[in-house]
């Protein structure tokens, strides 16, 4: 038969992989996906374990200082706590009372992040309604906000204002008319997963080895000293070793597990946090609410959606199998209902759940625990040199934490370069971009152009330029196709992520590109996206089926805990699009049994 894939770029790539030149997946030195030889044993100066915001931030800082670094992440970049965060680089009004240091750090660094990644952040105006039966009256609230105002200039935030009941209701008619008055304050949001990816990709651009779906299975020891790790590729099953002078354990809630590999104990007080994600904006303002137990929570706009949360409960379960319970969903909705009585009419299309790697504290409620962080040198603390751990902290202060941790690593390595992460733009943050011109030039709709700019900043034209040719490249300038209409995501961006950003699975697209996490939860875009990636990465039919089933199963898993109202109909449709439309091909990750597409396997050169 005429092989339909004979001339696809995917096949060419896959062929190269079969020749044994490189592992599948990962971003190589130049940030471009090239077939560079990588040995079975990689030797580097620092191995960073964990591709969340801490690990990615540290890897970038090290790379900027000229240190050779490898970053391994067992899932997708930012897929753990960072993804489950509220995606805010807020100062933390909450911490003002007990942790003013945390507030200061967060506010100062929020300003820095705005400077290095202006495309990735968005202003979130907050509205704080005050009710008659609130434990703290308007006067005390205003005093706190006046204090907070002093921090606002650090992050280009506006000072608070006090609104009358009528003014507040005019601004947001969905507010409960029971309110007495309201205050405004100013915070910033960020795409946390993209921020992680941007840090990791920039590190890769500067020579770092970044490998996703790669888990540390043991630490390499040399007379008590940690000198690297043995890692396993979760997709291909391959194992290899990374030799490093220093290992930085930045595994977030998983960090005690990594420390245990060296026989060490690092205690955390893990706190589970759940957010509800609405299919669209509930309000363009973030609105404070109070939980039944008096905790502060809010509903806030996040990119195309609104989110509500969060919970904070001690977590003792399996980090890799975290389920959201009906109780958690009910608790959040009940809190929101007091501020926004109509909240239950909005459709919750999925939930996020994650665990904060909070520093250990005994005898205190979850909310009272410090949001501060710690960098542990296990050489000094436990007599196990070569291993460091970073624990605790907040998304908003990630850069400062990374700077501190990197300073400690560099001191040990004898590297004298100073930190440049506060000044050096993240990829795409270098310059503003005329989005209208982008839309015209590539004949891509305004919403798609805007979102592309949001994720890629000044690099957006590059994304559309380099990757468009689809089947036969008939027109001279092919027009990007919209694959996911909610976000929107174009085929060009998917191909770019696959070929230039080292994206490895369809499921990772939800984090990296926000594909399929809107109203349809992938029902209308997942299969199309799988096809585009299959072409780009040379997936066989079996592997494509596996990727699609895995993606839809993950969407199902996160959609079902908050099942109410119209979301049930949405899930009925989701089922028809998934189970109802399946063929007889058995999904297979490795793609065995296909004749038309070579199996994309990775063999390694022996060192």
């Amino acid at each position: 038969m005429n092989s339909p894939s004979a001339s696809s770029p995917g096949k060419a790539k896959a062929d190269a992989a079969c020749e044994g030149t490189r592992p599948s997946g990962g971003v190589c030195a130049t940030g471009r996906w090239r077939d560079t030889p990588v040995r079975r044993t990689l030797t580097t100066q620092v191995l960073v374990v964990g591709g969340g915001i801490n690990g990615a931030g540290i890897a970038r800082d090290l790379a900027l200082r000229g240190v050779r670094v490898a970053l391994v992440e067992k899932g997708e970049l930012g897929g753990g706590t960072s993804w489950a965060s509220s995606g805010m680089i807020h100062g933390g009004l909450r911490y003002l009372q007990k942790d003013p240091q945390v507030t200061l750090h967060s506010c100062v660094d929020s300003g820095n992040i705005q400077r290095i990644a202006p495309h990735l952040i968005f202003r979130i105006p907050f509205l704080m309604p005050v009710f008659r039966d609130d434990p703290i009256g308007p006067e005390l609230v205003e005093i706190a906000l006046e204090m907070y105002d002093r921090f606002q200039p650090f992050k280009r935030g506006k000072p608070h204002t006090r609104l009358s009941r009528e003014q507040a209701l005019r601004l947001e008619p969905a507010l409960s008319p029971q309110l007495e008055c309201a205050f405004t304050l100013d915070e910033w949001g960020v795409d946390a997963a993209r921020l992680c990816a941007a840090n990791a990709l920039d590190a890769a651009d500067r020579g770092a080895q970044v490998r996703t779906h790669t888990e540390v299975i043991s630490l390499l020891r040399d007379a008590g000293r940690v000198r690297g790790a043995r890692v396993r590729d979760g997709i291909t099953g391959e194992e290899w070793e990374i030799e490093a002078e220093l290992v930085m354990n930045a595994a977030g809630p998983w960090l005690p597990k990594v420390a245990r590999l060296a026989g060490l104990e690092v205690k955390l007080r893990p706190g589970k946090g759940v957010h509800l994600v609405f299919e669209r904006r509930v309000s363009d303002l973030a609105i404070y609410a109070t939980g039944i137990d008096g905790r502060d929570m809010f509903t806030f706009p996040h990119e195309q959606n609104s989110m509500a949360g969060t919970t904070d409960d001690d977590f003792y379960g399996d980090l890799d199998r975290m389920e959201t319970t009906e109780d958690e969903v009910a608790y959040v909705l009940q809190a929101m209902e007091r501020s926004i009585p109509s909240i239950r009419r909005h459709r919750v299309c999925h939930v996020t759940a994650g665990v904060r790697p909070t520093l250990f504290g005994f005898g205190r409620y979850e909310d009272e625990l410090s949001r501060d962080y710690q960098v542990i040198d296990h050489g000094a603390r436990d007599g196990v040199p070569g291993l460091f751990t970073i624990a605790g902290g907040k998304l908003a202060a990630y850069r400062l934490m990374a700077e501190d941790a990197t300073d400690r690593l560099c001191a040990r390595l004898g590297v004298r370069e100073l930190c440049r992460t506060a000044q050096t733009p993240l990829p795409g943050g270098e310059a503003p971009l005329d989005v209208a011109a982008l839309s015209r030039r590539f004949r891509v709709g305004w919403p798609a152009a805007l979102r592309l700019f949001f994720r890629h900043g000044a690099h957006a034209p590059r994304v559309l330029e380099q990757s468009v040719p689809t089947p036969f490249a008939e027109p001279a300038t092919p027009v990007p196709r919209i694959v996911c209409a909610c976000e929107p995501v174009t085929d060009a961006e998917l191909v770019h992520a696959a070929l230039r950003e080292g994206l490895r699975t369809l499921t990772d697209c939800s984090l990296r590109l926000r594909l399929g996490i809107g109203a349809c939860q992938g029902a209308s875009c997942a299969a199309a996206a799988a096809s585009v990636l299959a072409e780009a990465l040379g997936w066989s039919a079996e592997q494509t089926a596996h990727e699609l089933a895995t993606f839809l199963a993950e969407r199902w898993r996160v959609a079902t805990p908050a099942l109410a109202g119209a979301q049930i109909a949405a899930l009925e449709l989701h089922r028809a699009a998934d189970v109802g439309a399946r063929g007889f091909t058995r999904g297979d990750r490795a793609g065995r049994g296909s004749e038309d597409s070579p199996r994309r396997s990775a063999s390694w050169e022996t060192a």
Partner: protein
Amino acid sequence: MRVVVIGSGLAGAAAALELASREMKVTLVSAGVGATALSFGSLDVAVPSPEGSGLPLRDATATRLLAPRERLAACLRTRLRHPYATLFGRSGGGAAESAATDAVKSAAASLDRWLAPSGLRVEGGLDAARLLANVHGAVRACDFAFTGPAEGDLQGAAEVEIAAVTGLAQHDARPLARALAAEFAAIGLPRPSFRVVPLPLPAGFVVDGGSPARVAARTDTEEGLRALVAAVAARHRDETLGRRAEGERRLLLLPPILGFSGVLAKLTRLREAAGCRVAECLGAPPASPAGLRLAGALAAALSRESVVVRHARVRTLERTGRQLRALRLQSREASSNTEERLEAEVILLACGRFLGGGLSEHEGGVHETLLDLPLYDEAGVRVDGSAASRLVRASPEGPQRLFSSGVRTDSRLRPLGADGEPLFENLFVAGDLIGGFDPSTQRTGLGVALLTGLRAASEIARLAEQESA
């Protein structure tokens, strides 16, 4: 006799059309589009699925593909709570089987008669399955399908050309070809040769980021259709080299872009231009022009047969004891926010499940929307009042009670109470609202809609005869 049908999907429409053809006065109340408009081109009577709980593709010894007739028999034999068992008997003996077969034949013929004036035919039968490709490259062993995809039986073709329409989103010809090849390997049949052929359309034809709906709408204009026909003809002229099969042995498989009406005529022109068979892929939920075509053709038939269609939402049903008396309607037009009372002597409830609005959630539990009829899952366990999240698993695999649940009926399609007795004297139920099967695994969805709709109509007609006698 004043008959009111609630729901304008295939079940409700078929019932209304059947009653109208018996010269009865019918009012059809429709709140909007439901699951029928989201269907994707096949009329599944007994279609196999790869899921364990689905109908089998092969016979017990796995040596050959089952004929649809055998699959229907298997459904009657093994799915005791499936609506088919309710309609044709649970014994599964030869009598049930032949009753079911006859009913399917005559139902398909009736539907074909209603749809044909809109250029939509019902093709197929129970003797041999047609292997149709969907837009993602999955193979569906269909018994019946509508014009467009129906002509795309992959089994008869030696060579299948898969059209790659440049710029069209949601459609990638090469992965589709790979998926089809893998499907044939999985099914264990010799496969035709699959070839991807580019189908360049004029600049400006594909817009809006390749939106398939916009492209489909374009072929509804003469200009757009002419451009598509020209592209197919050009392809035919250029591509004679390398082509092995001719005429019926060759199939050109298009994405589902043949617009929302007049598919039959379009296919004739395309066949002529291509010099071979031409068909569309089946769509895939949630977006496919095929469902809208079907909904449109049904609406046209209802209007031809003078069925009164009221676009309104039913607020409540008035009842006296075991008799329903009237409906309270809220008009869909925004200007009129008034309720209206519509008297009824017989009511047919055909408003689907969650998508259609027949089932809904309130106060934390799942309920039948209008009368809070008791609901049962596939295993016969009562579920109404349960939280929806308790009726699904954390993974989409395996049985999902939430999506096999619905109303339980007697063989006359009267909804049953917990005691197994009909709840009302003048209420019937048709379509997906009847529970006992999961349409995603037991792919019998539109088949159930059509057969139960027609059965309900004949029960209602019989009731009318008794009353007049």
